[in-house]
């Protein structure tokens, strides 16, 4: 662990490992959420994808951060399927593009990475905030991270702010009527249910925070 306030390759690997753990643990819960307003597969899709990512981890240890994230994006695109595969896959590929060649990321660079990830998701799925999708967790997270950054907060407090905002974003999907994705077919019946993709998105951010900040006195 460096004293400098950065995110290194080891922490990216830890993030992916913790994300795989979290999605495995949440598999059935995410699938139940998807059963209510979708087709009961989101937990399986995400778990399948991140177990694939987990299996790649040993081959990633010598790579720079951009290459690691690119491998993750490709693995997700090739294994998740459904809507979540291309969305998260494109998100990780865009994140890879802005971290290419990097061994460690400054807090600003982490902000750019998160922003690029959101841009990739939006570019692929063309959802705007309020459509009851993962964008509703990711957008406030990116904004909160940015706000914390500009007020001089360090990496961990900024990531904590992102996680808090994502989780609030997840709760905010409950009263929304879906206008994108499978849940949109339910019309008003989608109201009152938490969006599965927003939920998995918050889990990913939480895993990032844990990977970077456990053991650090934020």
């Amino acid at each position, binding site marked *: 662990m460096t004293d400098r306030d950065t995110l290194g390759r080891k922490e990216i690997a830890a993030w992916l490992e913790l994300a795989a753990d979290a999605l495995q643990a949440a598999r059935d819960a995410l*699938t139940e959420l998807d*059963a*209510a307003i*979708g*087709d*009961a*597969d989101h937990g*399986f*899709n995400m778990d*399948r994808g991140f177990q694939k990512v987990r299996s790649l981890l040993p081959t990633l240890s010598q790579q720079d951060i951009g290459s690691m994230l690119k491998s993750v994006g490709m693995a997700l*695109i*090739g*294994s*998740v*399927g*459904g*809507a*979540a*595969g*291309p*969305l998260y*896959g*494109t998100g990780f590929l865009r994140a890879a593009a802005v971290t290419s060649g990097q061994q460690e990321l400054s807090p600003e660079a982490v902000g750019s990475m998160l922003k690029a990830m959101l841009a990739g998701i939006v570019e*692929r*799925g063309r959802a705007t905030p309020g459509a009851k999708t993962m964008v509703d967790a990711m957008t406030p997270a990116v904004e909160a991270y940015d706000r914390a950054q500009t007020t001089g907060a360090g990496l961990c407090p900024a990531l904590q702010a992102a996680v808090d905002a994502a989780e609030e974003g997840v709760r905010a999907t409950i009263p929304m*009527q879906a*206008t*994108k*994705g*499978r849940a*949109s*077919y*339910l*019309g008003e*019946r989608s109201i009152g249910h938490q969006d599965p993709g927003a939920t998995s998105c918050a889990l990913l951010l939480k895993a990032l925070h844990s990977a970077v900040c456990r053991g650090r006195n934020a």
Partner: protein
Amino acid sequence: MKKLINSPNTFVRESLEGMARAHPDLVRVHFDPTFVYRADAPVLGKVALISGGGSGHEPMHGGFVGHGMLDAACPGEVFTSPTPDQMHEAAKAVHGGAGVLFLVKNYAGDVMNFEMATELAHAEGLQIASVLVDDDVAVKDSLYTQGRRGVGATVLVEKICGAAAQKGYDLARLTTLARRAALNGRSMGMALTSCTVPAKGSPTFELGEGEMEVGIGIHGEPGRQRMPLAPADSIADMLSQAILDDPAYTRTIREWDPSTAAWKEISLVSEPLRRGDRVVAFVNSMGGTPLAELYVLYRRLDEACAGSGIHIERTLIGPYITSLEMQGASLTLLRVDDEMLGLWDAPVKTPGLRWGI
């Protein structure tokens, strides 16, 4: 959960292995990535027609691979869109040098995965086009939803376009035909029960003895509305009226333009059915509803069409686009002209659909 499976994890693969063994004269199955393809592929000089989607809808799509229909089909996990590498590898394996047409059902996941496959195939130098099927009239607007789902019309579009490709239509002409066929299809479905995704192990939703879901898709998901169960005639009336009374439907979709190698937005309109129109009528079982019940529905659909001055030229009755073991049915009317009707009648030889050969 009671199912004839060994394990949820191996279900899709073992089912495909069985299909390959059952029909070695018609299809082969490739794994890693998974796709079903014509035993005689590539057919040189013919446009390759490729579709795909989640598993659990059998015989669609894998069962429609063969002479006069699809060149390849890419099955995902149960109810989960396939991944781009599947379509990309399938396209490379079956194209006969005359380009590839993707037939895509309008679901967020299918659309995005096929979009990525299109980009990959194009980068590889393949001539590629894609057409969206979105025929489910249960979805009223395209502004506040993902747009109409691709359901029953998919089967009819695959048959008509497969025949055209077999006849030697080039990519541009086939694409135009596919779009025209897709725009002329309308469907509406309902469920008496939910179904159980093997990996989940319990039904996707619960439906009481006296209830039904109306306006469902094909993924065991709840529909637009839950209603008290009604006699078959009332259900047939409700579904057929939704189709016959459906006004013009306009949507903006993103299509790959092979000439500029870029995505462009186009606006397409489905004109309503009108007195004097000729149609193919398709009564589909969601998997658990027996043929005899489908005929009860057809009897009434035939009356409704006659009453509206719609001429049913051909029929297709049976389980062709299913949701595992769900009980329920969907009705599809697809307006045809002489060209489409001739293509409908053309020989087809696939595991799931066969006539004239």
